[in-house]
């Protein structure tokens, strides 16, 4: 089921994760979030941007403690925890935020 943004069609998997990482652009993230009824604010973008940077370096989404530590540094220590991340991404930071960032869904016992 491809996703349409700005007149262009992008291939996704069964759950709406982008098939090709290089297809990603910020408008796609906004459109995916809108489809879930979410409006992305600057805090969402901090997470999304960090996920993309980390993925570029390590070819995997960051582990939850790596992510909370990085977000704590950027947004303040009171936000460096998974509770805050779940407030931003109620379906789970690993899965929902990865989707908006254009990363593949983490697999395994998670």
């Amino acid at each position, binding site marked *: 089921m491809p996703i349409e943004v700005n007149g262009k069609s992008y291939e996704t998997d*069964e*759950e709406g994760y982008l098939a090709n990482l290089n297809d990603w652009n910020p408008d796609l993230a906004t459109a995916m979030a809108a489809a879930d009824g979410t409006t992305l604010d600057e805090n969402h973008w901090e997470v999304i941007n960090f996920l993309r940077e980390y993925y570029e*370096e*390590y*070819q*995997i989404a*960051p*582990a*939850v*403690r*790596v992510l909370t*530590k990085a977000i704590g540094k950027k947004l303040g220590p009171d936000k460096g925890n*998974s*509770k805050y991340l*779940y407030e931003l991404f109620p*379906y789970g930071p*690993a*899965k929902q935020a990865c989707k908006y960032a254009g990363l593949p869904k*983490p*697999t*395994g*016992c*998670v």
Partner: protein
Amino acid sequence: MADFKTPEVKEYLEIPALEAGVMSHSAPFVSKEQFQAPLGFPGELVDNWQQVAIDKLGELLETNRGLQVFMDSCVKCGACTDKCHYFLGTSDPRNMPVARQDLLRGVYRRYYTLPGKLFPKLVGAMDLTEEVLDQWYSYFHQCSECRRCSVFCPYGIDTAEVTMATREIMNAVGKGQKYSNEIIGKVFKIGNNLGLPEPALRDTLEGLEEEVKMDTGVDVRYPLDEKGAEVLLVTPSADFFAEPHVDGLIGYGKVFHQAGISWTLSSHASEAANFGLFIGSPENMKRIAMRIREAALDLGVKRIVFGECGHAWRVAYSFLNTLAGPFDFLDPRYPVPQHICEVTYDLIQRGALTLDKSANDHRRVTFHDSCNVARASRMGDMPGGQFVIPREILKAVCNHYYDMAPDTIGESTFCCGGGGGLLTDDLMELRVKGALPRMQALKHVVEEHGVNQLVAICAICKSQFSKVLPYYGFEMDQIVSLHQLVGDALVMDSKQ
């Protein structure tokens, strides 16, 4: 979120009124060529799939004598019917273990018994049609291979073996499950279920060292690929990645540190899980298990210890020697392999750990026995050690421990609802409904004893509970790792 109703938790677990076919729509995403090929399976449904399936069933009957007995010996006594969490949670009579098994048994009768060949209608034999294949795919992915029903079967029919055989047949004809098969491919390619490459693993572990140093002031190490370490720790990759798993990993490191045991993780065998078990594929199980042998030899370790992972412990305890042995290069004074709970329990028995129970005084704790640990393995050298040891550890590290009802723990434990390769978002309705019996038992100790934490020693159970607890009015962080409580109670000093 999928559209379904969370079952109501009543005062007692009720046997539901039957609703035929109510879960027939439930099926996980079908695998694709890119996930099938690395496992040696056809990429899509083969043209002559019926013949291939029937031949594969014949082959399995020859090579797995247990399966032949399980096909022949059911007398339809009904003892299993109300024992399955998926039946109790969904009301679908096809989820009575006997009815689910009969989807394979009917086909077996048609092609492999004389009465079934001559008078199929009289003996419940059925042709293998596309409709039957679809039913297989749906309902054999509504069994978590937990084997609770087998405990109550007077003939000892191992239902999990029937599910595994059917999944193996489906893979042979090219109708595999995406979730399990994609994950197995990642183990072959990268070394773990997550696809966590060595540099990311190293970065993650360094972060944990900093975190523990900040919390305790002690330099606890989380070493990777260190040759000459005494212990190779093989743990589920969820322990690196997710909560509450990671707090368990932190706890293992603290135990090794305080005991002065040198240990290492391996980037080659950075996964304890072995999903080859779930899909009933001995070849894939062996390939996954061999990575542990290779890592142990390469690193020159003396012992292999498994972290908190339920089915991994079944594979390790029951099959590791057959799959990847002999392990004659390890120290014969220790069991091969050992469970992290056995290590911690032995240290506590010997007085080698200083524990401050009051560190866990804010916790009122109960323990969820994971199915593969409970019904397919053991710990220690006593019968039932797999039930005794985790509880004895918990009682040594916290002051408030309460068991759930006896018919929901020990060898009668209820599955978390996400085991056996079903821990995937495309089966969320099944997972929520299948958690009902466990949630019912939990609610009881919450009301009776003020329990606020559910402890588990399985990565699947932990992920499943953090997802389904909120559906039942609990908080997602009420599920914790056993070694998190151990780590919190351990009095750390910088032994030099």
